[in-house]
């Protein structure tokens, strides 16, 4: 980047990403500072309203020569971060391909198509094919809830629903159970079914899924394909959306959250 782009920034509160100076506030992670400055770093398991998690590893960058997750690494003065390089994007494509083959992702038949971050990242990183052998796992679809549809075929195990339900809704409806490739989201109810859980359509957990694993019922294709979030521009050009997105829902009743918080 040219020098005039970087001029006027206080060097004690900046670091660089691919040579561009990025300001930050104390306590910000590299990803937060980058998004705030309009610099795109690919990511899936991060959300501005939740504590960083660091599991999808899409945001892996090279910080002063060492690999690290941009979502969990703190911004520090003078850091030199490599982000948008052919080698790092190549790695990210491999990670994306791993996610595509470990689940059952059929974009043409998925209501989330066009609003799906996994699909959007695949377009943005020019992932042309899943490359690896599909695992075709047998996974559960839970259609028991009157308002919410849970299709684990599409789950990428980012735990956004787990964290949103626990930290934002105060309900802990979801939990990741099992180990390795047998990991799966389980529902907190005696029957294991969503209908017997505390999840309601008002919950932020019901709307936070970056893929089509948790979807509201009866609103299919309300926005036509072609006019959806990532149809407008590739995800890499929607930094502002990623930095500030709020989940468009009715607020949770404060007393409900407080009552269940003791858990």
């Amino acid at each position, binding site marked *: 980047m040219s020098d005039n782009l970087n001029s006027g920034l206080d060097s004690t509160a900046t670091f660089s990403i691919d040579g561009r100076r990025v300001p930050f506030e104390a306590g910000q992670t590299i990803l937060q500072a980058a998004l705030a400055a309009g610099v795109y770093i690919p990511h899936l398991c991060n959300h501005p309203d939740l504590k*960083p*998690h*660091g*599991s*999808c*590893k*899409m945001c*892996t960058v090279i910080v002063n020569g060492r*690999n690290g*997750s941009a979502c*969990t690494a703190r911004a520090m003065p003078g850091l030199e971060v490599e982000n948008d390089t052919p080698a790092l994007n190549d*790695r990210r494509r*491999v*990670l994306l391909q*791993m*996610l595509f*083959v*470990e689940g059952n992702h059929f974009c043409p038949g998925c209501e989330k198509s066009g609003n799906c971050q996994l699909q959007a990242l695949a377009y943005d990183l020019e992932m042309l094919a899943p490359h*690896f*052998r599909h*695992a075709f796992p047998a996974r559960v679809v839970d259609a028991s809830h009157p308002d919410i549809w849970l299709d684990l075929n599409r789950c*990428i*195990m980012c735990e956004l629903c787990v964290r949103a339900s626990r930290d934002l809704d105060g309900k*802990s*409806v*979801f*939990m*990741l*159970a*099992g*180990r*390795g*490739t*047998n*990991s799966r989201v*389980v*529902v*907190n*109810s*005696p029957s*294991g079914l969503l209908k017997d859980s505390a999840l309601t359509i008002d919950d932020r957990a019901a709307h936070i899924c970056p893929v089509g694993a948790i979807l509201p019922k009866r609103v299919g294709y309300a926005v036509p394909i072609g006019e959806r979030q990532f149809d407008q521009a590739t995800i890499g050009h929607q930094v502002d959306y990623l930095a500030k997105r709020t989940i468009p829902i009715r607020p949770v009743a404060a007393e409900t959250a407080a009552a269940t918080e003791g*858990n």
Partner: protein
Amino acid sequence: MSDASELHDLIEQVLQRYQRRPDRLVQILHDIQDGLGYLSDATIALLAERLQISYAQVRSTRDFYAFFYSEDRGQYRILFSDNVTDRMAGNQALFQQMLDYFNLQPGKVSRDGLVSVDLTSCTGMCDQGPAILVNEMAITRMTPQRVNQVCALVSAGVPLAQWPSGFFAVDDNIRRADCLLGASPEPGESIRAAIARGREGMLAEMKHSNLRGRGGAGFTTAIKWEACRNAAGEQRYIVCNGDEGEPGTFKDRVLLQSYAGRVFEGMVIAAYTVGAQLGLLYLRAEYRYLRPRLEAFLAGMRAQNLLGKDIVGVSGFDFDIEIHLGAGAYICGEETALIESLEGKAGKPRVRPPFPVACGYLNQPTVVNNVETLCKATEIAIHGGAWYEAIGTKQSTGTKVLSVSGDCARPGIYEYAFGVRISQVLEDCGARNAIAVQVSGASGACLSERELGRRIAFEDVPTAGSFMIFDKQRDMFEVARNFAHFFKHESCGFCTPCRGGTALISSMMDKIAEGRGTQYEMNELLRLQAVMKTSSHCGLGQTAGNAIADTVQKFRPAYERRLAQTDFVPAFDLDAALAKARHLSGRDDAHAHLGEEV
């Protein structure tokens, strides 16, 4: 129903034992499973209600650990250790023999609910394998005769406590003792020596000694202790990492079995130096047989005032040690995963920083040290840092305990000063014709004949202690494939590269084994390894591809002789895929097959 009230009583008893603490969940699940044989959904639902935590939370913990069962696995749950050294000693034939005896499929319980037989990751008996676990009790030196004896005892329903005690004998096999294994200080000697040096003095000696952690990573112990001491917190904890799960390692088993005093005194010294009041020994479930004698040892230390209040008369120096049992998860050897497990959760590594020294067990400053590292602290307390620093090499001071197994005349425990050459170890253990040595376990390095002049030291070949020897009759491809399966089984699933990469590497190795691999797969293995190494969240994923990469590069012929002579063969076999259709239609004639002849 009386069954229901018995269940309630059992849960109540167990909960009282653990003061109804949700952070004791792993221990609680162990004790309930001991009573019931398995942990059904109904059992954990009741338990969740009583503990006032969510059902999904209990389920998440239960389903993470290999030794917790959601379904009945029988009165006798038999697991064959499936490390490559067990395989070399013939465990597969013995496994099949036992399955045949009971007419069982692997992992399936017999119709009468008596027994199940399955495989498990390395149980740490590589010097006396093949080994099995029966209801988590270790039995070593399995032979066809011993398999028959075990089968007869199971069939007759003889309680485990009445089985011949010789079955459960675990030998130390100490072949070479140096300063640690050769010394026998008086009980409490090292604690008194540390106290005589004072807190500052002891820390100064630790710094001088340049002792580095023996778990593999080699972090300087004094820096950990000092950081923990200086961190802000209400309580400080000393955790002894006894989750020795690295395939081929068994030195901690020997240290805990015959040098428990050194381990526990090391914890007391650490507690004295950093100001901790509680210590936790995390004992892997495979070493459960050690628990009663370790508990007895701790009771003895309390009686001698080496634990408890005002230890050895130092007013205000209060410290005690609890034993926590693991439940079959290699990942819990990673210190933050271990802490999660101590807190009753699935053992998934935390985001670091913050490091445990600042925010560890129950979010308090915590020192996590390897069993062997803590033993070393007792040597430094007694002899001083300068004495210690003079042993070994500049960057790797002191001695290292190696667990030697595989193709050699005298497998067992060898203690050497750091800097010993691989070739020296091979000579001492009677290994002729070695073509490869896997140093530091499945996550370590595979050294070829050309590298046997290298030295065991952090600056050359670092190791957590595993030393597996392969001679010229061994197939290094099958060694690497065993490790690939191990990592797929043990990946915690938290991060994409490890969860996805271990599964893909494992299936590619199987494809090559089936004769469907090509040069394409060889390149793919290396490409996956590079992504896992650079992107994974913790050491497991970062190192899971090492043995594959090493063997692809150093033992290429072992792979190449299996490769098809084309650019690419799909893993998918169309004719095999029709097997189900043939079965359903009851046909198996030539026209029901796809092939050249049709």
